[in-house]
């Protein structure tokens, strides 16, 4: 039934949002749980809290030079 399918939002700008508790299996076989109603999974690869988003995908600027920096 379509209604029973889990809702997943690919934000495009940053994380992938998964509705409902999730059990994430990491490359080394360890499992990480999230009981949040919505979980934000890192999709940019920059998070230091992987597999979860920590907003590290955000644009960073240095105001004194007015130019952008990678994280």
């Amino acid at each position: 039934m379509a209604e029973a399918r889990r809702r997943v939002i690919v934000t495009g700008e940053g994380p992938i949002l998964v509705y409902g508790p999730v059990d994430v299996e990491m490359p080394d076989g360890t499992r990480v749980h999230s009981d949040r109603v919505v979980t934000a999974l890192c999709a940019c690869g920059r998070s230091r809290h992987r597999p979860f988003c920590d907003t590290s995908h955000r644009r960073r600027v240095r105001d004194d030079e007015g130019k952008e920096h990678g994280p």
Partner: protein
Amino acid sequence: MTRTMSEAPTLPAPRGPVSEAVLSVLRGDRPALPAVDGSAPYGEDLQLALYCCYELHYRGFREVDPDREWDPAVLRIRAELEGLFLSALRDDVPAGADVGSELDALLVEHVDAFGVSHHLRRHGQLWQLREYVAHRSLYHLKEADPQTFVIPRLNGPPKAALVTVQHDEYGAGAPERAHSKLFADMMTELGLCTDYGAYLDSAPAEILAEVNLMSLCGLHRGLRGALIGQFATIELTSSPGSDRLVKAMRRLGCSPAALRFYAEHVEADAVHEQLVRRGVIAPLLSAEPELAPDVVFGIRASMFLAARSDDLLLRHWNRGESSFRDGVDGRKP
């Protein structure tokens, strides 16, 4: 039988004629009310008076009859104080209606920005961290409560998304995971008093004004757009700020239990940011586009007041002085 909540705080000390009169009204006296219109809108006297009026809608005070919450004498003086505060903010904050660019600006990390969390991360001292946490306890021991007032003023998708965020704030069914509880646990680890309202007398007007803005916008349906702007500002800026505070606490040798509050906010607010932008603001503005200027006002007023608090704390700390009002020194446990 008393109807006052057992953990209700005692009334604070007055800070001038207006707060003196408000405290007297709260105790049940009928003093001659002083003229309010000459009070400094961001000053100690007005902000404390307003804070005490609002506190009746949360936990109240031990000496104050719960019926004072809807006493016309209190509501009348509160309305005058709100009028002064709100018109000062409307004057000091540039108007705008482009919510999209306002949110985009909040999502940019300024590498060389410098505020309290940057200071604490790089070279803050433990007594400064303790003062910061004590000041923030005015909000965090009732975290999410001011924004909960807006729930019945919303409808449909924005209401559902906002409640999803609030559910998480309140621990998602587990009271020990409520953010206010995590904050209290951190206070205990830092040797601070977790009694609700314990640091009201210590908190300068700048700190009170930030909480007063939330209560003002939460309690007025006409300001629900501003409340949503204020809410978005917290949820969008908290994740990187919390990350800096986790680093500050690690550098200062705080226990893992002390770090939990800010560590939780790094991940939780990365989710809340998405829910607020996609779930609350987008459908709200599509249903009620006329709220856009107030959403922008809520964002800018929050940022304006937050900057005033940051300036105040850094000014004191740069001189090696405590930022506590009553001279209680945060350097001593």
